[in-house]
């Protein structure tokens, strides 16, 4: 239907402006140290968003993101690189940034299970941990190329996850919730008591290195000293882009449709020939794989793994990110992850109150905006495709 494509598409400008503004804002927020300034900036953000909401400036933005996603994604990547370049020698900010990227990847994986297929998974952090421990063990005891280690991490997460398939497929609702919750506790205790994996002490993880390029050494471009975290930023960015495309294509295909159908009404779905088990398995395995890969890379970034990093509470934080951003909406996840990871780091005063804060936020979201900050729009198989 080529003729229908001629119809005018939503303008690019609003999206670009929004991106530019948020980039500048992000740089400012990450740069300032003085608490009053930080608080001021945060207040500013809230006010700005509310204002935009009432001036009805948000819908144009949403529309141009919906229809010009391809172009805007490229701009978004550029924006991220600008931020990274700005902080090229600031270890801590870059570490924070990388953390955001990898958590986004992980929650994208969780989103496939939770958001699309409706397969409950309260053990997100556990699968993240399986990935991290994989890289810890392989980097310590073997010479497996590190890019391969990432893959293996993902596969192990998927594999161990599939041990749960039988109960996950057979149970429903609360019963299904228990399966993953029990697994989360089981895995953490196992890691704690298992000496080979370092017990509660945890393990060191050797930094990444590809073709002799060691990621843990600072390097220089011209005369400018660069933080070694830039290496990780690049890889994490690539990983995020890959996952983002994967999740997008998944959603915008018959498979995405099947997953939704399974989530919304199993009986009806099976009356139209859907193989419930097949799609649940697809989602669960694929999701855990993605989470595992992110975990493997995060293990190398952090340089250390311990059971206490992968507790039930951490899994809950992942779920919170999902709900906060808006289940099923990748862009929402990016925003939510930034809020959840960066806010407590910048706002020293709330550092130790952060769990309390997250919990309260999620409760508020569930009570007053169950669809999250950026609700998932209805499926468009091809952005900008009009009829």
């Amino acid at each position, binding site marked *: 239907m080529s003729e229908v494509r001629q119809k005018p598409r939503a303008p690019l400008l609003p999206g670009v402006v929004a991106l530019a503004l948020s980039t500048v804002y992000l740089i400012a927020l990450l740069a300032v140290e003085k608490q009053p300034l930080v608080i001021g900036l945060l207040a500013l953000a809230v006010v700005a968003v509310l204002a935009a909401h009432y001036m009805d400036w948000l819908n144009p933005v949403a529309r141009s993101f919906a229809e010009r996603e391809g172009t805007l994604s490229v701009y978004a990547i550029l924006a991220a690189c600008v931020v990274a370049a700005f902080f090229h020698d600031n270890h801590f900010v870059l570490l924070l940034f990388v953390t955001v990227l990898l958590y986004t990847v992980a929650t994208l994986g969780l989103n496939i299970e939770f958001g699309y297929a409706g397969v409950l998974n309260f053990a997100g952090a556990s699968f993240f941990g399986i990935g991290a421990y994989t890289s810890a063990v392989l980097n310590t005891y073997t010479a497996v190329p590190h890019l391969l280690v990432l893959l293996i991490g993902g596969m192990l997460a998927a594999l161990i996850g599939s041990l749960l398939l039988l109960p996950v497929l057979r149970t429903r609702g609360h019963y299904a919730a228990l399966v993953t919750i029990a697994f989360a506790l089981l895995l953490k205790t196992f890691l704690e008591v298992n000496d080979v994996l370092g017990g509660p002490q945890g393990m060191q993880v050797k930094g990444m290195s590809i073709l002799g390029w060691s990621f843990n050494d600072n390097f220089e471009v011209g005369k400018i000293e660069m933080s070694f975290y830039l290496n990780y930023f690049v890889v994490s960015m690539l990983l995020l882009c890959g996952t983002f495309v994967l999740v997008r294509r998944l959603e915008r295909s018959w498979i995405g449709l099947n997953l939704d159908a399974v989530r919304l009404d199993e009986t009806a779905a099976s009356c139209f020939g859907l193989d419930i088990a097949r799609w649940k398995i697809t989602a669960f395995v694929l999701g855990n794989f993605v989470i595992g890969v992110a975990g493997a890379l995060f293990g190398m970034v952090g340089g250390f793994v311990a059971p206490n990093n992968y507790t039930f509470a951490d899994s809950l934080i992942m779920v919170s990110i999902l709900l906060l951003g808006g289940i099923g909406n990748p862009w929402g996840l990016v925003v939510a992850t930034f809020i959840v990871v960066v806010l407590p780091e910048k706002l020293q005063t709330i550092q130790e109150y952060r769990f309390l804060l997250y919990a309260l936020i999620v409760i508020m979201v*569930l009570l007053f905006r169950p669809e999250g900050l950026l609700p998932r729009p209805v499926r468009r198989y091809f952005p900008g495709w009009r009829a």
Partner: protein
Amino acid sequence: MDVGLLTQYVMNGLMLGMMYTLVAVGFTLFFGVLDIIKFSHGDVLTVGAFTALATYIGLRSVGISSTPLLLLAMLVVAILAMAALGMLIARYLVMPLRSAPPLNTLLITLMLGTVLREMVRLFYPQGANPKPFPALLPTGSINLGQFNLRLDNVIMLAAGVTIIIGLRLLLDRTKLGLAIRAVAQDEETARTMGINFTAIVLITFAIGSALAAVAGVMNGLYYNEINFGMGLLLGVIGFSAAIIGGLGSIYGAILGGFLFAALQTIGAVALPFASAYKDVFAFTVVIALMAWRPTGLIQEKISERV
């Protein structure tokens, strides 16, 4: 194995089982009336224990030192406070979400649990540290070979049994119990029978949370130490117990509670690997049970109208 030693293990198992059961019964009550999981239950237990401790310290500071009086006061205050808390939770967090998907209720109560836990950690003086809990029960003990029978454990077991029997009687013999069971059976019919649905739900939550308070105090008396994190694991275990027993059935909860304790004890002593693996073992069995009996040992009927 030496008989005395065996009895010792059984005794340890019974004590754990009793505490798990009290928690599990709460879960199963809530599920009965509202078909929801109130995950904050375990942390209500924590708050209950800390309330009791605060009461104790308060009373001691004003010079009251009679042990039975202190114990009574602690129980009363904790029970009343938790009952109230339970009602509040039901009224403002659970009831509003009735139309929403059950997942949301699960999540909101999970998060509420975190809120309670963090509140204790942050706002109770030095709440992050484990707190010594007074031993208020007579600690006399008889040594039978390897078996050391402690009076306080016996008292606690007896108390637990009485509470559960009492609850059973309340549900079976009283008008209130009838109303609760009616609501659990079918909300609509209950309404048409002229039962005040909201009131019944609130009362049920009060009862369940009161049980949590008792379990909390019992936990403190048993370990002589409480900490802000104690509720999380107890909650999950109680939840597991209720689930493997079969949600909505009191007997299921009891069965599940003691089963879980048994699993832990067996995992600790009877199995070849190190005792530290006992929870790994217990939870593995739980998952296996879910695969075998997806709706619990005492089956709960699932009927779906098409």
